[in-house]
């Protein structure tokens, strides 16, 4: 079967988390904000144009040519904000997690913590309306297959944390845009991001690495499998399967001593925290906007030797976050904001 693919670059996206997974929402509640040109929708479908017995040298259109069940992918890259990252973590890490806990400060800050559920699939899905001023398309059951968060404050990098997501979704026809109100966003500056690396026996977040970290990224891969049941006529099934949730990271580091590289060679487990504090929210206790990502069981792999970039030994220390007997999940992600709830 020959396939056809359309890629449409989008300039407007609206969304809402689905109350029932796989059931499209009708009215969108939030605009998705992204830099121009950084969002696209890919539509793919097989078309059954197969030459049959040689009545002609050319395939015929007459005998009930049919277009296969379509597959849609939504790719968006955007500047992260402390508020929006919570919405996205509901899709990528753990659903039904839109309410935070007060820090007790005045004015109040609210801690939104994401500890993925180990053995129950509770990822949220969202409906999206995408398009431009002229046309809107409905995409439902949007589930995040991969989410990459990266920081690179160097010249030529990005001023803010960037997030790229790949969403597996289903095309639901044309629609009309709603007029959701905009959400207050406090963007997460890339500069000032701190990385802590500790030994397994230590406490996470104790030893900050200074004078060595250049940039880095964190990727969540949910290994989503879409299902096509034989009765499905136009799009894949509303249900989907999840594979292993793979948490990986890359830290571009200048190795000023052999210590950490020796840990990499030996395959020693490390505890890694990446955090970025933003503006102040309140006092007693002192509370500020905060992004904090913990890997309690991190291993470097593949084990790459450093290369010499100019005068410095710079190496991309890639690795996987895992679990063990005392840490049931590989990642805990936290965002502190000044709102108790985040709009679905």
């Amino acid at each position, binding site marked *: 079967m020959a396939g056809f693919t359309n890629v449409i670059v989008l300039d407007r996206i609206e969304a809402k988390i689905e109350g029932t997974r796989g059931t499209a929402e009708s009215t969108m509640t939030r*605009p998705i904000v992204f830099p121009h040109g950084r969002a696209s929708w890919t539509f793919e479908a097989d078309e059954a144009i197969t030459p049959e017995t040689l009545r002609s040298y050319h395939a015929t259109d007459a005998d009930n040519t049919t277009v296969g069940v379509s597959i849609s992918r939504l790719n968006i890259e955007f500047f992260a904000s402390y508020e929006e990252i919570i919405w996205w973590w509901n899709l990528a890490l753990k659903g039904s997690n839109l309410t935070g806990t007060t820090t007790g400060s005045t*004015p*109040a*800050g*609210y801690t939104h913590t994401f500890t993925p559920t180990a053995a129950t699939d509770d990822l949220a899905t969202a409906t999206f309306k995408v398009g431009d001023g002229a046309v809107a398309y409905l995409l439902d059951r949007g589930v995040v297959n991969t989410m990459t968060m990266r920081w690179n404050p160097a010249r030529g990098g990005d001023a803010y944390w960037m997030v790229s997501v790949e969403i597996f979704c289903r095309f639901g026809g044309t629609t009309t845009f709603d*007029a959701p*109100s*905009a*959400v*207050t966003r406090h963007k997460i500056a890339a500069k000032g991001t701190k990385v802590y690396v500790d030994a397994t026996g230590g406490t996470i977040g104790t030893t900050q690495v200074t004078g060595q970290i250049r940039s880095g990224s964190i990727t969540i891969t949910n290994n989503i499998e879409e299902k096509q049941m034989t009765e499905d006529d136009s799009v894949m099934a509303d249900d989907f399967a999840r594979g292993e949730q793979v948490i990986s990271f890359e830290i571009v580091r200048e190795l000023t001593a052999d210590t950490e590289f020796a840990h990499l060679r030996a395959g020693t487990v490390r505890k890694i925290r990446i955090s970025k504090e933003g503006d102040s*929210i*309140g006092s007693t206790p002192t509370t500020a906007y905060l992004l904090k990502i913990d890997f309690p069981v991190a291993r470097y792999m593949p084990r790459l030797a450093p290369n010499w970039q100019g005068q410095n030994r710079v190496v991309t220390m890639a690795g996987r976050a895992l679990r063990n007997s005392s840490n049931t999940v590989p990642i805990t992600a936290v965002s502190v*904001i*000044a*709102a*108790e709830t985040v*709009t679905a």
Partner: protein
Amino acid sequence: MLRYIGPRLSTGEIERSLIYSGIPALDEIDDTTLTPEQVKHALASGLYERVKEPPKKGEKE
């Protein structure tokens, strides 16, 4: 005059706004600066209510 009555951050900052509809994110908006459609949209969103303009000095209520 329209007054913001929607949710706020704990810091008092406006949490949701209608800036994508060209309506500024302010506590109070002089509705003569908006089109009738924008006023309708602002009121329909539930984020704003209409309030009487405070009487100007020397003007009778």
